[in-house]
C-alpha cells in the first residue's frame, strides 16, 4: 500500500447482496504462537494462508442462537488510526476442561477467526488479533443466569495498551488451484482442527 492515505474507489448501493448482521455461531481460536500467517503480496488486509506448527491445531468453539458477536472500532491516535477488537461468545457447558481452556486464554495470547452471516463478501471470514493477539478479559459465570443457563459468558479483547494496526483481516485461502472462495477458506481452516 504505497498510497495509503488516498481513497481510490467509491461504493454503490445495490440489492444483489444486501449486508446482513451477525456472525455464525462458531469461533475458531488458536494460540498465537502456534500458527504462521501468509498475507497477500500487495494487500496486508488479506490473509491467504494459515500454517500450523507441527503438533498444533486450531480449536473450534460452537454456540447457538446467534449468540456470538464481534466488533472492531477505530481509535484515533497521534500516530494514526488503530483498531480495538472484541469477540463476545459463550460456552454452553461447565467442566474442569472448560475452566482450563479459559485460564489458558487469560494467560496466553490467541487469535480468533469469525465467520460473518453476510458471506457473499470477500471479507466474510475475519481474523482478529493478527498482530498483537487477544486475551480473555471477561469470563463470567452466574450460576442462576437464565440467558446462558449457567454457562460462561466470555470476551476476547486486545491485551492492555495494545491495539491492532489494521482492521480485522479477511481470511481468504485459495484451494490448490484456482481462486479463493468462501468454501475453500472454510475447508482450509477445518483442515487444521484437532482430529
Amino acid at each position, binding site marked *: 500500500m504505497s498510497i495509503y492515505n488516498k481513497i481510490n474507489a467509491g461504493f454503490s448501493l445495490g440489492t444483489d447482496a444486501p449486508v446482513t448482521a451477525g456472525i455464525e455461531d462458531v469461533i475458531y481460536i488458536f494460540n498465537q504462537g502456534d500458527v*504462521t500467517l*501468509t*498475507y497477500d*503480496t500487495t494487500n496486508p488486509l488479506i490473509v491467504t494462508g494459515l*500454517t500450523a506448527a507441527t503438533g498444533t491445531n486450531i480449536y473450534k468453539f460452537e454456540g447457538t442462537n446467534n449468540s456470538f458477536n464481534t466488533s472492531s472500532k477505530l481509535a484515533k491516535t497521534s500516530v494514526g488510526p488503530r483498531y480495538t477488537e472484541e469477540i463476545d461468545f459463550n460456552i454452553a457447558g461447565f467442566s474442569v476442561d472448560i475452566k482450563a481452556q479459559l485460564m489458558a486464554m487469560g494467560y496466553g495470547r490467541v487469535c480468533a477467526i469469525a465467520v460473518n452471516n453476510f458471506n457473499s463478501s470477500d471479507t466474510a471470514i475475519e481474523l482478529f488479533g493478527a498482530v498483537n493477539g487477544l486475551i480473555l478479559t471477561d469470563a463470567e459465570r452466574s450460576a442462576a443466569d437464565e440467558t446462558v443457563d449457567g454457562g460462561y459468558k466470555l470476551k476476547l479483547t486486545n491485551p492492555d495498551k495494545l491495539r491492532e494496526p489494521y482492521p480485522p483481516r479477511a481470511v481468504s485461502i485459495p484451494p490448490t488451484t484456482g481462486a479463493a472462495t468462501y468454501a475453500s477458506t472454510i475447508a482450509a481452516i477445518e483442515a487444521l482442527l484437532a482430529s
Partner: protein
Amino acid sequence: MSKKYILKPGRHQFAPRSPAIHTNDNLADEDAEWYLQKYPHIASLFEAIPTEEIHPAESDEKSVQSLKIGAIQNNNNEDLFTTN
C-alpha cells in the same frame, strides 16, 4: 542459476508473530535451507523443495539403471549392425 526452493505466492511469516516479510523474490536457497531446518512446519509454504538431498540413494540407483539400459541398447545396436 535457477532457484531450487520456490515459495508459494504471498508474504509469509516463518515464525509465529514475526512480520510477514518472506517472499519468493527475497529468499535465497541458502536462507530457505536454514529456515526449513529451524522451522520444519514451513515446508508446506514451498511449491518446490529439492528432493535429491532427502533421497540420495534412490537417484543413484536410477542413474545406475539407466546406464545399464544404455549399455544394453548399445550392444543391441552393435549386434544389428554386424548382422546387417
